[in-house]
């Protein structure tokens, strides 16, 4: 028991790193994703198409590989080594942030794009016919619908990001996973450190879900009223009229 407490203590030292890694990537990722998504929505054409292809490509490559390229590959380039860039690329923490942001943007921009195109046309037409400007239409009709459509997928994406931060230990970042793995290697105890770390990650996921649900209701939209089975992968597009029995 004492051993467990000692381990937990040691592993919790990494909590700050995990949280900063997670929150910084989440924030930057969200802003950039919104930019990329609106770019793709506003400008259609070959440029937009190639942005989409780049995002598709990033979504297809494992995060671990991207981490290796950025952390082990880039420092070999003179451009990186001999300029101000070096201060960022020499830090495993900032390398991890860059990679997480990259992946987060690729996934989140696609969620936003999908949510935008799921907006019912009638609502947009109704708003336009009332004489609202394009921006007002967006604010009144499109944005709330996007929030509602994108919420389940975005929640999943946030949890995915939280899980992905654990890969940072492979480039020597000492986060929760880093400390847990270090204890494992040092003491040859496997269960205790890893299960403690696992518990912390699960708590983080619970926290994320709670905070996101709160945030969602704060923005003034009632929480998504979806049946349990449908809250995660949204299958609205496939929903047909349910049977009515008298």
């Amino acid at each position, binding site marked *: 028991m004492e051993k467990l407490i000692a381990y937990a203590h040691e592993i919790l030292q990494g909590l700050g790193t995990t949280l900063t890694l997670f929150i910084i990537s989440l924030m930057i990722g969200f802003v950039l994703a919104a930019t990329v998504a609106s770019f793709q929505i506003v400008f259609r054409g070959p440029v937009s198409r190639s942005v989409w292809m780049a995002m*598709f*490509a990033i*979504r*297809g*490559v*494992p*995060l*671990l*590989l991207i981490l*290796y*390229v950025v952390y*082990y*590959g880039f420092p*070999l380039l003179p451009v990186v080594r001999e300029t101000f860039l070096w201060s960022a690329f020499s830090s495993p923490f900032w390398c991890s942030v860059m990679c997480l942001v990259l992946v987060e943007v690729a996934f989140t921009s696609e969620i936003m794009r999908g949510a935008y195109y799921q907006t019912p046309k009638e609502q947009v037409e109704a708003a336009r016919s009332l004489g609202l400007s394009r921006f007002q239409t967006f604010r009144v009709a499109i944005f709330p619908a996007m929030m509602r459509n994108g919420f389940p997928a975005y929640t*999943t994406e946030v*949890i995915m990001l*939280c*899980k*992905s*931060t*654990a*890969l940072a*230990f*492979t480039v020597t970042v000492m986060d929760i*996973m880093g400390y*847990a*793995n270090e204890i*494992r290697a040092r003491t040859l105890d*496997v*269960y205790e450190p*890893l*299960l403690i*770390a*696992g518990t912390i*990650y*699960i708590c*983080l*996921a*619970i926290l994320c879900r709670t905070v996101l649900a709160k945030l969602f209701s704060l923005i003034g939209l009632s929480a998504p009223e979806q*049946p349990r*089975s*449908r809250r*995660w*992968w949204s*299958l609205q597009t*496939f*929903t*047909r009229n*349910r*049977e009515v029995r008298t």
Partner: protein
Amino acid sequence: MLGYLAAGWGWQFANAFGISILAAVSSFFFSMLIGIGLTLFSRAPIPGSRAIVNSYTYVFRSLPDILLLLLIFYTLDGVFQAALSAFSGGANVRLSPLVPAIMSTSIVLGAYATELFRAGWADIPAGQHEAGQALGLTRLHSLVLVILPQVYSKIIPHLGALWLISMKETALLSIIGISDIVRVASIGARSTGAPFVFYGIAIIIFIVFAAVSARVFKHLERRSQTTAGGI
């Protein structure tokens, strides 16, 4: 690039690609089994079955994949050896590291697959089950002939996403020392001093794979939609 590929690295990459595909296909397959099995289990009239399935999907959608992989990798061999010596008195058989890798990926993807199948299942009108019953189909026939084909056509786009994840997940194999694409690329990068060639090849393999998969799933989706429409 072609020079390196000719100098033996091409074969290495091909081999690594084979291993990754093997791991991806088997974990995708097992995750489908888990998804269908647990969906049936959660709908069965067994007290607590829903709660069990809910906690399984919650936990394994929250746990980092790498953590589960390390946990299984470092403990499974001990368990396996103990079981082996209990049954056969200590034969010298070693477990391939692919086994824990496929296990952990299947468990994680199984959690996503379960949620997916449950969502698709819930979207099937009760009348479909009843029509099968009224025609006298057994449960198994109703499952295979009526329900699963419809669940499939509802979730096929998401299955494509899951398949891509299972391929990307194979990158983790490099951490436990399996010569997958990522490991071959890092070894090549370190030993030849041409990191961008080797990482580049690995990245291209993954992107081409993703593009081909997307095509295939788009095709499957279109095919299933020409048949299954509304009621």
